[in-house]
């Protein structure tokens, strides 16, 4: 009896210890993520002279919105913003459509060589972007696609990640439901649209959100492809801003960063509930 009470006490100690450790971990992560964000926001509200002071100034004094004015007037901010929207929309749409369709083929259709195709897709996922940059650049430049949207979009439209994620999601669906739909006379498109996708909705939302955020933040390739505001997206625009002003004037750069973050932040807040559901739904079959 005493041994059991002792055991329970130990367990409660352990669980309290785990709780504390958990909170400490959370606080650390929060600081790690939050401090830079906080610093970006306050820097964007500081006057130029207040940015480099020792000791660090944690609240802007006086606060100013001049940097926001600067960033929207000194560079063609709206052009960059428009480019970002175009690139993100087209790329996300094509990645989502291609991902879903290829995953459908690799999970629900039977054809010879299916396993090999999937292996190739996985292999493609293993190759980092940076490695293919040089050959892609040579090819796209040769086509005369520099400073064009297709030059930015086409080489980025491959979707190993989406194919992989959605294929595994589709495979986790109960086979009998797919068979029932086939017996019920559903063709491939109906099967996908009315049966498979509604059951995979949370995973699809998570995949879409990840894709949109990735495309919005895409930097290296658009940077290589664009010279100016004709096609460059926001992250590249911000670099150009920094280059124009030299490395000391961080105020407008931070203001631009804040503005660039806002759309993604809003999207995340709108979809976060479904995204969190999606991340677990993808991992654990209900």
């Amino acid at each position, binding site marked *: 009896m005493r041994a059991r009470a002792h055991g329970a006490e130990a367990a409660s100690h352990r669980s309290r210890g785990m709780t504390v450790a958990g909170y400490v971990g959370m606080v650390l992560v929060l600081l790690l993520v939050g401090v830079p964000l906080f610093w970006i926001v306050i820097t964007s509200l500081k006057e130029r002279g207040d940015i480099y002071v020792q000791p660090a100034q944690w609240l802007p004094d006086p606060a100013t919105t001049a940097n926001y004015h600067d960033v929207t007037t000194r560079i063609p901010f709206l052009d960059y913003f428009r480019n970002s929207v175009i690139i993100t929309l087209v790329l996300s749409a094509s990645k989502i459509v291609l991902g879903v369709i290829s995953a459908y083929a690799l999970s629900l259709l039977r054809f010879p060589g299916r396993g090999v195709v999937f292996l190739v897709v996985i292999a493609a996922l293993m190759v980092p972007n940076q490695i293919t940059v040089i050959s892609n650049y040579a090819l796209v430049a040769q086509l005369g696609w520099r400073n064009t949207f297709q030059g930015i979009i086409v080489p980025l439209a491959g979707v190993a990640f989406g194919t992989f994620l959605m294929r595994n999601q589709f495979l986790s669906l*109960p086979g*009998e*439901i797919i*068979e*029932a*739909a*086939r*017996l*019920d*006379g*559903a*063709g491939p498109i*109906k099967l996908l649209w*009315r*049966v498979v996708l*509604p*059951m995979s*909705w949370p995973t699809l939302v998570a995949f879409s959100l990840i894709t949109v955020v990735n495309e919005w933040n895409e930097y290296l390739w658009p940077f290589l492809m664009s010279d100016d505001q004709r096609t460059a997206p926001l992250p590249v625009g911000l670099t150009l801003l920094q280059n124009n002003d030299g490395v000391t004037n961080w105020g407008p750069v931070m203001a631009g960063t804040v503005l660039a973050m806002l759309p993604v932040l809003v999207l995340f807040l709108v979809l976060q509930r479904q995204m969190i559901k999606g991340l677990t739904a993808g991992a654990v079959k209900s």
Partner: protein
Amino acid sequence: MATVYFDAATRRYAKDASPAVDAVTLDIEDGEFLVLVGPSGCGKSTTLRMLAGLEPVDDGRILVDGHDQQGVRPRDRDIAMVFQSYALYPNMTAAQNMAFALDNSGVSKAETKTRVQEAARILEMEDLLHRKPGQLSGGQRQRVAMGRAIVRQPKVFCMDEPLSNLDAKLRVSTRSQIAGLQRRLGVTTVYVTHDQVEAMTMGHRVAVLRDGRLQQVDAPEVLYDKPVNTFVASFIGSPAITLVEAPVREGRAEVHGVPVALDRSVASAAGDRVVVGLRPEAWRIAGADDPGALELTVELVEALGSESFVYGRRPSTDGTEGERVTIKTEKRAGVEVGDVVRVRPLEAEAHVFDAESGERLGA
């Protein structure tokens, strides 16, 4: 409505493996309710899935209404299936689940609605139509799955253990509902189960499968009264038949030392050993004055209310345990565990099988 004919239909999952379904030949009449039964892994579900087009037929063919189904897609076969897991579409309401197939085949909205309402009325689930599967109980889901098959008015119903996820009481009531419904609709039905009570009570005929091979297809009572081999004899009937290997002497089989006279035709076909099968009701309690009776020590008594089953063993003479014998007794036979009862087999009820092949001897 249609006839179904399995013509030596065979399914092999791997080239060198033994077939999961081995040259099954089965003739199912229009409007018949055929039950496929057998232990797990015997190929009964595979047989059903071959008919539905969900599994290929590697050898032989399957005809529906005389038409070879080779290469016909599942959606074009006009066969409705009820799955063990029900396989309802979780994102659709019960009504949408039932209407899905009709939408796909281009049936008008009005007609679809009428058919769904009619099916809901038959299955007594009109007030559940707007609910999604997640909000339904197991029994209700089962009815939606049935409804989904009914609204299609298909040529053939395929049912793959549709009752195995229900609790015992619901299973009994649903069993009779399905059988009644099938009679009313008159749609050819192939029903898979591993439960021999379902098999015996629901179908016009029962097909017993073992290791992918068809053992016997007959009406339930024929299956019970004249099993073609020891496998069918032991699979059908609960509690199971008692099978005793017995030496044959002078036209009599000696069942645990008790002589059982064999039919002349049986005796002539028998070697020097046979297997005698005696169902629980094929024994009677013998009086104390019957010198040739078999003495059994009672190990277990199952009192079911209207009757009791007594499980006993012959007291061992040489230290080894004798085989178990199951006997059906009256409600109040007063037999208890540890008693010694004296029983005698009813000769007319004895099934005799070849000791080597297990095949039935005589008619």
